[in-house]
């Protein structure tokens, strides 16, 4: 069976660290940076568990600042 693997990129300067993508992710791929902040002082989101991503776009759909891009590949 083909396996789906995904990845996301977060525009970290645009991210406001609202945590909505972290809550929406069904595979617990995303987290907020615990210490690092962007230029505006927000703890931006990043892929803390990249292997788990299935490219379902849930994070990108609920992101209010449109800072998430989603990529998906099929592995045979």
């Amino acid at each position, binding site marked *: 069976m083909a396996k789906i693997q995904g990845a996301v990129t977060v525009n970290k300067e645009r991210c406001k660290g609202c945590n909505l993508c972290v809550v929406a992710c069904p595979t617990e791929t995303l987290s907020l940076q615990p210490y690092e902040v962007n230029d505006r002082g927000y703890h931006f989101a990043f892929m803390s568990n990249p292997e788990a991503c299935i490219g379902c776009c*849930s994070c990108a759909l609920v992101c209010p600042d449109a800072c*998430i891009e989603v990529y998906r590949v099929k592995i045979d």
Partner: protein
Amino acid sequence: MDIEDIIKPENKVYAAPELLEEVNMHYCPGCSHGVIHKLVAEVISELGIVERTVGVSPVGCAVFAYNYIDCDWIEAAHGRAPAIATAANRLWPENVVFTYQGDGDMSAIGTAETIHAANRGENIVMIFVNNAIYGMTGGQMAPTTLIGQKTSTSPYGRRVDLNGHPLEITNLLKELDGTCYVTRQSVHTPANVRKTKAALKKAFMNAIAKKGTSVVEVVSTCNSGWKMTPEKANEWMAQHMFEKYPLGDLKNSES
């Protein structure tokens, strides 16, 4: 497979819509306005009507909507967006005109304009963002505030004897003969975001086909005004708001 091998242009399945400007939005972190802007931008570019779309922005948090979506915009006086949209649509009938209003704009100061524009059946789309509070001015009580909800002007909760009942303006608009499509959606989960996008698309297609007024209410959060984190605000909305403002199509004259 390495992450670098996955992140390639040919594997991209979701990106921010082209119509959304690169500037940082002024909204608070987690505000529903951002999601709704994104959906409006996606729908306009998918329908291929960028060149003939005119938005009318309100007074409220969404007052700077013209900075974020790259189509033509008119800024209306407080509550007068449906009147401006009427003029824009009647003077250029080939244009697709939509208003983007909050609950203070649409159901408080602009009630008359809203009801009469809908009653005349103007071929416009009204996007109504209902967060049950005056967000921009500091979280005061709005006509849509729920009974018992605490705001800065109702610190012990809204009381029926003092403040009256919450105004469900979408239910009023449903009764008017001029409206062709009235729906109430929300954007707190990925599934609801998809439904809201479908509703917005239908509303814009009604405006293109000149079927009458379409109203899309989006029940949304104001985490700053409600004094909650964005995720808590979403939970609170699902628990309390949907009881008074149930989701779904209220009127769909085709079916």
